[in-house]
């Protein structure tokens, strides 16, 4: 039995590696995606273009505007000459934010009356607008605090001190790159398994396998183990890139990470085999993999938080192995997720794996009979 299994596994690894097309699929797209996604998939809001329409001549207004000009996340400040310029700047996307200070700004401020600073935001990008609004409010709050201190104005009862744990500068990169460990290994493991049987069907070698004394379960193990090894290797490459190229900290246990990756891959390979058993050609297998991958990634919490989704979709995501693995991988990288919390996420993946592998095996036997 071992002779046959080892022969199968060696054959599978060799044929994946020696085929130019599949070697390309394994190496180039994941690497390109790793770099492009890491840098492009960002919710960081930087280099923001803003504009100012200042109708006030007093020193305080210039002081406030100087603070906007010095803020690191704002690229440049456009000075508008008229009220009409506001609409133009926002409409034409010249500026995401326009700060409008009315003619009485300094007068009100010195008189102790609330001075108004109007913030006009482009809502076409709601997320950006929200973050930019946060930036602007912080600048105004800081201005207020300094003004209060300098002019001995009675102050607010208690300040709010903020601190972000695990990722002090709230960098998207630190969140995205660990997520890619999951996303990209999922794509590779899925495509390798989905294509493997379809390719053998096209070559006619699948029949050749079936007439050897190999039993159906041996053929399946011979497909699962190589995909597992390839997935682990791919995952390792991305972890290494995360640590040494993107400099993302890894504070948790590497062992736990690999244990979860192992279970995660099994559940994905189950899906891949299922697609493989269903499809007759490589074309169908690719289409099937694509149809699974798009929702699996969107509903994993990689792009947008799960808790923003409606209840029934949140329930749906529990069946998505990627969702569980994403929590684990980001948790282990950034916050040393304790072992019991990791296991709380591993067992759902194990359950999903049991179902997907089980139904793939069933489907295979069914299609062979």
């Amino acid at each position, binding site marked *: 039995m071992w002779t046959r299994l080892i022969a199968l596994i060696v054959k599978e690894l060799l044929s994946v590696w020696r085929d130019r097309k599949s070697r390309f699929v394994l190496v180039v797209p994941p690497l390109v995606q790793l770099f492009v996604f890491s840098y492009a998939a960002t919710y960081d809001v930087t280099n923001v273009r803003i504009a100012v329409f200042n109708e006030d001549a007093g020193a305080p207004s210039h002081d406030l505007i100087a603070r906007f000009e010095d803020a690191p996340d704002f690229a440049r400040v456009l000075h508008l000459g008229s009220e009409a310029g506001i609409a133009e700047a926002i409409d034409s996307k010249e500026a995401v934010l326009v700060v409008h200070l009315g003619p009485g700004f300094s007068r009100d401020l010195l008189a102790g009356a609330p001075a108004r600073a109007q913030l006009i935001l482009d809502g076409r990008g709601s997320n950006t607008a929200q973050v930019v609004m946060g930036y602007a409010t912080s600048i105004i709050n800081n201005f207020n605090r300094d003004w209060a201190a300098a002019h001995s104005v009675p102050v607010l009862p208690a300040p709010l001190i903020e601190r972000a744990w695990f990722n002090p500068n709230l960098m998207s990169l630190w969140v995205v790159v660990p997520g890619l460990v999951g996303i990209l290994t999922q794509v590779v493991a899925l495509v390798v398994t989905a294509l493997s049987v379809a390719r053998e069907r096209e070559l006619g070698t699948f029949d*050749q396998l079936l*007439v050897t*004394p190999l039993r159906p379960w041996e053929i399946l193990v011979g497909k699962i183990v190589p995909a597992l090894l390839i997935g682990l290797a791919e995952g390792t490459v991305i972890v290494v890139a995360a640590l040494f190229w993107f400099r993302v900290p890894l504070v948790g246990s590497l062992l736990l990470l690999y244990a979860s990756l192992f279970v995660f891959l099994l559940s994905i390979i189950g899906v891949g085999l299922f697609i493989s058993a269903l499809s007759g050609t490589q074309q169908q297998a690719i289409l099937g993999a694509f149809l699974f991958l798009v929702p699996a990634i969107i509903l994993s919490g990689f792009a947008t938080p799960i808790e923003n989704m409606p209840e029934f979709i949140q329930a749906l995501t529990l069946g998505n192995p990627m969702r569980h693995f994403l929590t684990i991988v980001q948790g282990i990288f950034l916050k040393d997720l304790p072992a019991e919390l990791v296991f709380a996420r591993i067992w759902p993946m194990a359950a999903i794996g049991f179902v997907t592998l089980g139904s793939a095996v069933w489907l295979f036997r069914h299609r062979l009979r």
Partner: protein
Amino acid sequence: MTGPLVTIDDITCRFGKRTALQGICADIAPGQVTGLVGPDGAGKTTLIRLIAGLLRPHSGHITVCGFDSVGQAEAIHGVVGYMPQRFGLYEDLTVAENLNLNADLRAVTGQERSQAFERLLGFTGLAPFTKRLAGALSGGMKQKLGLACTLIRPPRLLLLDEPSVGVDPLSRRELWRMVHELVDQGIGVLWSTAYLDEAERCGSVLLLNDGKLLNSGAPRGMTDRISGRTFVVRGLDPAGKRLVLDRARQRVGVIDALIQGRNIRLVMAEGAAAPTANELEAGADAAVEPVRPRFEDAFVSLLRGQGLTSNTGALPQGRTSETPPGDPDAVVEARDLTRRFGSFTAVDRISFAVRRAEIFGLLGPNGAGKSTTFKMLCGLLPITSGTARLTGLSLAEAPALARARLGYMSQKFSLYPDLSVQQNLEFFAGAYGLSGRTRREAVGGMKEGFGLEPFAASNAGELPLGFKQRLALACAIMHGPAILFLDEPTSGVDPLTRREFWSHINAMAGQGVTVLVTTHFMDEAEYCDRVGIVYGGVMIATASPDDLKEQARTPDLPDPSLEDAFIRLIERHDRDRKAAA
């Protein structure tokens, strides 16, 4: 106009480093069928595409109806009808929709269109099927539709690329009839084929091999050259005929020797005398008689004459071919084998038994059920009812044990193209559970026996076709199977490679291996000890090739070929069924 339709002037065509055609000069005349004959990879398709103006030659010129194939390709497209391999049909369109599209493309409208449709549908017999999807047609009907599409505006030159591949002998005859009608109207036809027997029906033949034109002219011219050099050894003892074949092969002056049913066919070198029956130790009743040469004899002698001899040296030994247990008269046994797909019965109660060391052929048109039967026998397809036993073992009850005793080679030479020869051998050895020293010996033995050593490190996908076939056979017999299943093992292979392949198979049968083979080549069926003819899901006859021919003998057809016998059997079966219904 009496000049040639096409003039091919010193054409050379390369793809990358590979030279596909070299220095071809030929003419194609109107009003006759010109056969473009040669094995796969000889350059036939390239030449047709060059004539159609779809490829640019590296050097040389082609003139078609007075137009240059490079500069005036558009004009050529107006006078040429071209049917590519696989007929170029849209399989998800119906027959009528395919015809309409082609009428639109060829600007045939109104009255002219309806007349053309009527003429073509009648001509091809497709009229009842106009609403059927082209993909749902049989191979023969697809081919007729493909032909009809190219004939909507009658061309002056018709280019047909392997029109008879995947088409049963009946449809092949139909097609020839239709093409001859066209030729009578003065159309020139270029017909490319790998079947050498088709060459004899052409008015003129261009014989291509490995990118070079070996010969051109009337087929008679070629066969005449070897007249008086072809013989048949009759009256052989069936058990000893393979030994006689071996002795004939080793004689000086024998260019070609092959089994033809009960007999052995010989082609002698120029000036060499035929051996006597005694010299061949062929037995008391044996006699050597001269026969009329066939085109294939001429082709083989031409190739062998060029020093293209093939290696039929040491025969590889299967690991061990122990006498399998069970009944030696029923090593492979099918009893009432039936397979239904939904309401369609693909195989209907087929029964037969194959003796130990027998070569048994399953012969039949595409879709007749021979592949389905074959797949059930080797366990690739579940059986609806009936039983299949290999060496007495049922595939359903002891699949792994039964499979360990069989070797399987499919028509696609199912190898892993990206694995090297060595890796392919190692893998299949492992899949059959050979390990350690046994595996090394088996792999080494196969490499040596099949002459694969020089290629051990090359990828299987890059091997020449003949070596691919050897490797596929090596992988199938490495574990010393008692039964060998061969599914269309020599389709697309040139005659020399096919001869070599069969010499291996003969040797294995000589060692006691039982061989089951499917084929649609009539001459391949002649290598078999017995053939079963499958038609419409039923086994309509089981007999030796000679007995089948005997049954078809009539006063007006005193020496029927196996193809004649085959067609006659099918026609009789159809008649009987109609009468019964």
